[in-house]
């Protein structure tokens, strides 16, 4: 039988193994970004802003110009980079602790100003890097190392729905929530990431893609169970949807 090439490593991705835990979907999200950058042909003018969190080393995997920002401040860094150099395609990659907790002000105001940046927001409902503490997106009753009895809304509030919240603002151009836990979701996730970059390139405002992701290590689950948990527990709370699309 003739060999047919159906997939290869994206040009803008280094040939190295990542430091992520088995079953972590950070790597899938990385790959989708690299594929989109390749397809849009913007490797030379794309600039990423890495967060604080498990993906702090993303610049070791994707071959672009990068900043490594302070915890939560990536949208401020990206804002100024884009204002200084409107010819660049500037994006941030942020976890839920980074974006929805310490960096909540920065993301809301960057979105509200309609900054021409794209945000890839990894929602794994927990703080991965620091060892599994509660995140703003942690589900009710979910056990984490700082909600050992399960998240109680009276003590810790409710999971924050970032995509919905930012969709109430007038300035954002594109806001969507996707997942990467099964192939059907992955295909949609890539489409959303591409739309986010196109929104920026076509000067249609701020864009954000929230990606429901796994953290099998800190959830205390096997990779397969974690995948199912996203489908069964997270998606009902965080529905997959395009909340805003450019006119």
């Amino acid at each position, binding site marked *: 039988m003739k060999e047919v090439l159906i997939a290869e490593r994206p040009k803008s991705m280094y040939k190295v193994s990542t430091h992520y835990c088995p079953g972590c979907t950070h790597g899938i999200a990385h790959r989708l970004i690299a594929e989109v950058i390749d397809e849009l042909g913007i*490797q*030379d*003018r794309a*600039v990423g*802003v*890495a967060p604080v969190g498990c993906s*702090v*080393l993303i*610049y070791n995997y994707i*071959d*672009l*110009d*990068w*900043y*490594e*920002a*302070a915890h939560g*401040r990536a949208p*401020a*860094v*990206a*804002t*100024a*980079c884009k*204002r*200084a*150099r409107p*010819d*660049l395609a500037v994006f941030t990659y942020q976890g839920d602790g980074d974006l929805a907790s310490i960096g909540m*002000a*920065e993301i*809301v*105001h960057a979105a509200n*100003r309609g900054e021409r940046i794209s945000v890839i927001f990894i929602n794994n409902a927990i703080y991965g890097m620091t060892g599994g503490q509660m995140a703003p997106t942690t589900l009710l009753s979910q056990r984490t190392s700082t909600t050992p009895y399960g998240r109680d809304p009276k003590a810790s509030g409710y999971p924050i729905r970032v995509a919905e919240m930012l969709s109430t603002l007038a300035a954002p151009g594109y806001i969507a929530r996707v997942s990467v836990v099964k192939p059907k979701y992955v295909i949609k996730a890539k489409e959303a990431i591409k739309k986010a970059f196109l929104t920026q390139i076509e000067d249609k405002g701020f864009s954000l893609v929230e990606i429901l992701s796994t953290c099998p290590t800190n959830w205390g689950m096997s990779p397969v169970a974690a995948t199912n948990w996203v489908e069964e527990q997270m998606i009902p709370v965080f529905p997959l949807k395009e909340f805003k699309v450019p006119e």
Partner: protein
Amino acid sequence: MGERVLMKGNEALAEAAIQAGCRYFFGYPITPQNEIPEYMSRRLPEVGGVYLQSESEVATINMLFGAAGAGVRVMTSSSSPGISLMSEGISYIAGAELPCVIMNVMRAGPGLGGILPGQADYFQATRGGGHGDYRLLILTPGTLQEAIDLVMKAFDLADLYRNPVMVLVDGFMGQMMEAVEFKVPEKLELPDKKEWAVGYRKERGRRAIVKTLSLEPDPLEEHNRRLQEKYRRIEKNEVRHESYMMDDDVELVMVAYGTTSRIVRSSLKALRAEGIKAGMVRPITAWPFPYEPFKKLPPSVKSVLAVEMSCGQMVEDIKLGVAERFPVHFYGRCGGNAPSVEEVVRAAKEILGC
């Protein structure tokens, strides 16, 4: 350029930045420096620049990180509590070796304090404020003319050393009016930012990463050592001060910077009129601090007197310079009060026992 104009301090500081080629300003309102962002919001669009009022000082300083990392001349201005909020970002900017200019128009503290002038951020400016082993170049002009010249110099120094530079003035200087002149600064040979800034991948042929993270101890130690070498270079080349009435037989050496140096200047005239041999050493850089003039004080000196609008923060540096050869005294007012000429004269006479 070239003609003398009457200008308010804060506006003169802002215009000097524009004349120095600053085209990006990010800031957040706080008294007593609001005329700087207001002036920038009006002027920058005229010269093709960008003014952005951010959501907080925390965001502001990280915007400086972003703009400086993209290789443009960028500035912010704030006042004491705002600078505290910026400390996180200042540490990152120093760690990533990005050039930018930060103006601190100091008010009185601690905490919310008051909106009146102060000089109590000396420790914060010269000893860090943020975390880690880093230094800022701290310029402390004494007149508005010097402020303008130093703001222009600040951008060059930032670029030359790839280091944040702070212009440290007090609220009086921001609010006073003086005749000033915008002189074309000398052209310096400055390093090419395209070598390390983001957005030049094609020209450079390789990528750039603007970062401070270094998880391995040895490379981080190496980075810190390199930073320290740079700071030693700055200490060697950039330390500035003014000696005033420092005759060979001077008996009392007064030390002050910024507005208090002007009060001391007037006090010196009064003291000299009474035949009292007093002079002044005025630091123009607070870091690196001018230790040399204190090491070289003549044996005629009986005492050193620091005058500040704080509770005596600069005294520690003066003591380092004097190295216990002479007693170091302090006279200061704080809370938004300034020492009067009469008070300083009285303090000087008391120290000399006359």
